[in-house]
């Protein structure tokens, strides 16, 4: 599904990713953990095709496609989804209209018919129900004036509508209180499936109490320095990142 080999990337003159390897199989949930500045968010952004990052070496294969040569919209059309750490406010752009444009752009790229207004509304209502969201978010401009929790829920709702093959959750727990965290995590769990892989990027263990990963990787200084099962996350929580990163430096 996703195969990252020797990925190096820099921002300006600064090397951030220094040879990152990662294999994600279908339906697997991988957590990428690491201290601040380890390159977690850069990795998420490079995968999604955000501008401002220069890939200097390595490859990213996504279901047989060279991801790095594609525009952001082409990656999304192939089934990649990034849940933003800081969802962007789009004043004046209605949330429903935005979702419909996105769903139909992706359907069109896959050779499916575009959904008409009625089918789209039906799909939207169904997904709202699964995520236990109310529809007041839909009438407002995208993320505009949303609370932190509403923004994150809206990200998960978009994910539910777009049905990605690989979802990258970038620090989805940041800025959420425990209740909001539970709601968001429940939404994510509802979307788990054998055909949907997830990459959960997080600094803290607490999100992983609710979203149980199959694998945990520790990212430090631009590389994955340790991989393991979910017990690795608990160990990190207990001992802190220095437990691993100091060992690495020595």
């Amino acid at each position, binding site marked *: 599904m996703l195969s990252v080999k020797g990925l190096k990337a820099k921002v300006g003159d600064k090397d951030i990713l220094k040879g990152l390897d990662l294999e994600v199989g279908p339906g697997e949930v991988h957590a990428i953990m690491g201290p601040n500045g380890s390159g977690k968010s850069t990795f998420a952004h490079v995968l999604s095709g955000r501008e401002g990052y220069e890939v200097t070496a390595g490859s990213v294969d996504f279901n047989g496609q060279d991801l790095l040569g594609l525009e952001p*919209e082409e990656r*999304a059309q192939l089934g990649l989804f990034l849940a*933003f750490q800081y969802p*962007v406010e789009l004043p004046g752009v209605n949330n429903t209209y935005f979702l419909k444009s*996105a769903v139909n752009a992706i359907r069109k790229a896959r050779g499916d018919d575009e959904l008409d207004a009625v089918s789209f509304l039906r799909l939207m209502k169904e997904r709202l129900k699964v995520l236990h969201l109310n529809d007041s978010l839909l009438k407002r401009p995208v993320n505009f004036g949303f609370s932190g929790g509403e923004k994150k829920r809206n990200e998960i709702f*978009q994910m539910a509508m777009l049905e990605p093959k690989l979802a990258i959750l970038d620090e989805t727990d940041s800025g959420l209180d425990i209740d909001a965290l539970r709601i968001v995590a429940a939404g994510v769990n509802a979307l788990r499936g054998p055909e949907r892989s997830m990459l959960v990027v997080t600094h803290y263990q607490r999100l992983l109490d609710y979203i149980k990963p199959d694998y945990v990787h520790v990212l430090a200084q631009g590389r994955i320095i340790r991989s393991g099962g979910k017990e690795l996350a608990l160990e990190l929580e207990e001992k802190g990142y220095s437990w691993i990163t100091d060992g690495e430096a020595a």
Partner: protein
Amino acid sequence: MSAAALTTRPPDPALLAWLGQAGEPPTSADEPAWLAELRHDAAARAPDQGMPTQKSEGWRYTGLSALIEQGFKPQQKPISALQSEDLDKALIDGLETYRLVMVNGQFEPRLSQLDGLPTGVHIGGLAELIAQDPDRLAGQLGQIAGAGQHLFTSLNTANFADGLVMLLDEQVQLDRPVELLHLSIGLDEPSVAQPRHLVVLAAGAQAELIERYLSFDQAPYCNNAVVEIRLAERAQLHHYRLQQESPSAYHLSGLYLEQAAASRYRGINIGLGATWSRTDLVTRFLAEQADCGLQGLYLAGDRQLIDYHMDVQHQVPHCSSRENFKGILHGKGRAVFDGRVYVARDAQHTDAAMSNRNLILSPNAEVDTKPQLEIYADDVKCSHGTTVGQLEPEMLFYLRSRGISAPLAQRMLCLGFAGEIIDALGPEPLREQVTEAVGQRLEQSPL
């Protein structure tokens, strides 16, 4: 001023052409003396006002050479080529209105729909009323605009042939909007139409007026329209102005507004068309608690200049005014915003705010924006703000990360930006039409 003034100073040849060969207004035996005098004074004033040059502040960014080179001439005879099938193309689906249609500046009763007007309402052609009952116009027509902001108002006053007259008695409320539809078709000779409209709402009357400008072909022509509006105490007018003329058209329009106590005016100006356009919005408050809102959206691309000038005069206390204009510039488009608000010494407790925000989508586009607040009173609440910016890369990336192509993402953000103004258009079919027109323009035009 006398007729001699015309001969003492050789008028500009272009100006002479607009006035007609003799430089004299077309007087008609049917017209009352006060109207003949009005026209005569305007014709005499025109040469003194002169053809503006780019040295004058109000025209610094808006050159007139292209307009003059076209050699527009006043149109001689009415056009009867348009049929009701043609009209269908100009109508907006689902929009129920009382409709007055002007074709090349002449009222066309065959295409108009004024049946079922309630009592206390007069809506009809100006020429007709001049011929039948000119007293109803005395003291109104020409009195609100006066000498006007510049030469072009005087040229209109000297030459107008026809237009809309809309008179509402006290407390009358219209059940449907009034639609004033200007249709233009090209003639062998490039011509100028000078429609003149008068809207008077008596105390407590309420109405919605939709003023639209459309072209039927790509031939060059010019519209030089003047609208005079007088709102008595507590009268309310919602006024939607849609300029969607062809890319070869020249458009001049002057709106002169006079507001009595506690009256309320909401004007939404949509400027999408014409190769060259200049609009002047002039407001004068006569008494306290009057409230004027001027909003606008302009979209200028290649070979297009769109100029909005405002002059809001706070001469009396306790009135409020809002100016909120947004612009989108693409290709080599150019726009001018000049929003002047004047607050006289006696106009205490004035509440005035002005905003002009622009999105520039191309490095070759240009906007010249000039908010001006002139305040002589010391207890007022006034603010202004101007921005010129580009689409946020963050926003574009967010949309593209959801599978939306870059061009569609741009259009969605532009429509989101414009939405605030479009949403102020009352009737939903009108909002849909403008949204679609803006979307189409952005889709077809190079950014």
